[in-house]
């Protein structure tokens, strides 16, 4: 079903390419910012990635005021308050987030507090709670997957109750996102693979779910092409800077696509599996991707066949009969999973993760049917459907 009525919004300036980190001092000056605080995690710092950023400021008149490098994989409200205090004490005037989803979400939370005041970020949770632009905010992703640099959402867990607070507001978007190939070059193979599949899933769900629109479709198909053309090249040659840059751009494009159209069943299942079995998000996506697409296809989903062109290229597309293109998309994804398994042992099924057992299924099913991502899945999914999908993915 094509949706002729839509909103589309992405005000983030994207600075991409070789040596794009060196644009950062100028981007700060553009927004009259001169006292940056870097927020990152220890892994990113130990990989030497923060050094690339600080070196970019060597020949500028801007000094990095502080580097906070202790963001854990799951951020929390108390951490956000703690970092905000530091920012205020040191009189910083902007944030540079360097990292993946958790670092970026934490930084979004910190930016709320340092801009709006207060010590409890949950005061601003929910939809559109912020009414004016926040302080200057720069994001440098170090994984090519989440697309958080272009999404207006942050998820931050409550330190006491563990409840995940969701913040949705366009003012959370950074002013500038920098995609520099140096930042993803050292990403280990299994994370490169899993995050690329996450980006691929964002693009495919953007294109096949009910919020799709002509603008998100354009970003989605372009992202799919870049991912399928580069993922194995980068796996075989991790030093391939240009391939890395293509994946980073694809991740951002897929992020723009899904944040303007939303995701569906694959994310609903993946969120739930992640919560119950503590499996990384990208891996969850990889496990469910072909099965959920097949479920939607067999229950009347139409758009999948069009994705064979960006996914497999013109030659395969033109020699595949029209009525077999949707199935060819699913087969292509199964083959891609096999290729990735061969290269980095990325598990292809729930059983291959070694962390899931069938007793978990009932809980995963309950969380799945309660996941808001199901609203815009084109096909209805009830408890029995979700359970059948888990068995298929076993």
């Amino acid at each position, binding site marked *: 079903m094509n949706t002729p009525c839509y909103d589309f919004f992405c005000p983030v300036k994207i600075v991409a390419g070789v040596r794009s980190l060196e644009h950062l001092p100028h981007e700060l000056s553009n927004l009259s910012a001169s006292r940056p605080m870097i927020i990152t995690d220890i892994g990113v710092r130990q990989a030497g990635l923060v050094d690339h950023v600080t070196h970019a400021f060597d020949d500028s008149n801007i000094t990095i005021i502080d580097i906070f490098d202790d963001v854990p994989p799951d951020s929390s409200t108390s951490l956000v308050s703690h970092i905000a205090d530091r920012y205020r004490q040191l009189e910083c005037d902007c944030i540079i987030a360097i990292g993946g989803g958790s670092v970026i979400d934490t930084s979004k939370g910190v930016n709320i507090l340092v801009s709006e005041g207060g010590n409890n970020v949950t005061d601003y949770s929910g939809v559109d709670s912020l009414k004016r632009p926040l302080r200057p905010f720069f994001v440098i992703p170090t994984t090519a997957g989440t697309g958080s640099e272009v999404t207006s959402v942050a998820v931050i867990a409550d330190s006491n109750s563990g409840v995940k607070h969701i913040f949705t507001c366009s003012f959370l978007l950074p002013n500038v996102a920098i995609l520099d190939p140096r930042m993803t070059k050292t990403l280990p193979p299994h994370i490169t693979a899993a995050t690329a599949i996450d980006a691929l899933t964002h693009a495919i769900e953007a294109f096949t779910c009910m*919020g799709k629109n002509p603008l998100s479709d354009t970003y989605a198909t372009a992202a799919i092409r870049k991912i399928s053309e580069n993922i194995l090249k980068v796996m075989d040659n991790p030093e391939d800077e240009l391939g890395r840059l293509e994946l980073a751009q694809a991740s951002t494009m897929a992020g723009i696509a899904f944040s303007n159209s939303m995701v569906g069943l694959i994310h609903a299942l993946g969120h739930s599996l992640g919560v119950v079995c503590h499996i990384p998000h990208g891996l969850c996506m990889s496990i469910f991707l072909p099965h959920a697409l097949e479920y939607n296809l067999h229950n009347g989903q139409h758009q999948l066949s069009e994705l064979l062109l960006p996914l497999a290229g013109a030659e395969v597309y033109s020699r595949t009969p029209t009525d077999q293109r949707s199935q060819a998309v699913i087969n292509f994804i199964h083959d891609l999973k096999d290729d990735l398994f061969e290269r980095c042992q990325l598990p292809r099924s729930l059983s291959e993760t070694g962390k899931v057992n069938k007793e978990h299924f009932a809980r995963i099913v309950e969380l799945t049917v309660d*996941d808001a991502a199901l*609203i815009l899945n084109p096909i209805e999914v009830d408890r029995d459907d979700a359970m059948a999908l888990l068995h298929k993915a076993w």
Partner: protein
Amino acid sequence: MKTEKNKITTALRDGYLNTMMGVIARSLCAMSKVDDHLQYELSVVPDNFVLQMKVLPNVAGFAVKKNSDGHLEYLGKEPGEKADVTISIKHPELAYLVFSFQENTAEAFARNRTIIEGDLAMAMRLIRCINWLEVFILPKAAAEKALKRYPDISFKEKSRTASKIYGRLALDMLNWSAA
């Protein structure tokens, strides 16, 4: 500026919205007392949980609360307290598309015509409850339009549940008028 004719159309539309939303809310409360499936969905919703649905800017709406017996209770057009989940439709014309079954709820979400605030998991549950209700109280053609998938139930089952809902609704109405 609204012309005289527009005013009448608007008043009719808003009246229709208020009636429809009132019927849905009251039927949902009635159904919560007689239907196992709905009771199962509601079993994990916390007591005193309030769901509000409204049409901006406060044109129509309803609020229901889960009471300690596990049933839903009709609170009125507005909750009179802070709702735990609020589903707002941005304009009465957009609400009319939904409640006249020209556009289904999922399409309205997809087209950014609605805003959901609060506990999303509970919102999903309550949306499922409303969908389930619609299967029984709407004519099949309207329900098929309103839902992504019309469930596999027999006409007999549909009539039986519908008459239970209406019976309960009639009792509730008597209680309201007596109160």
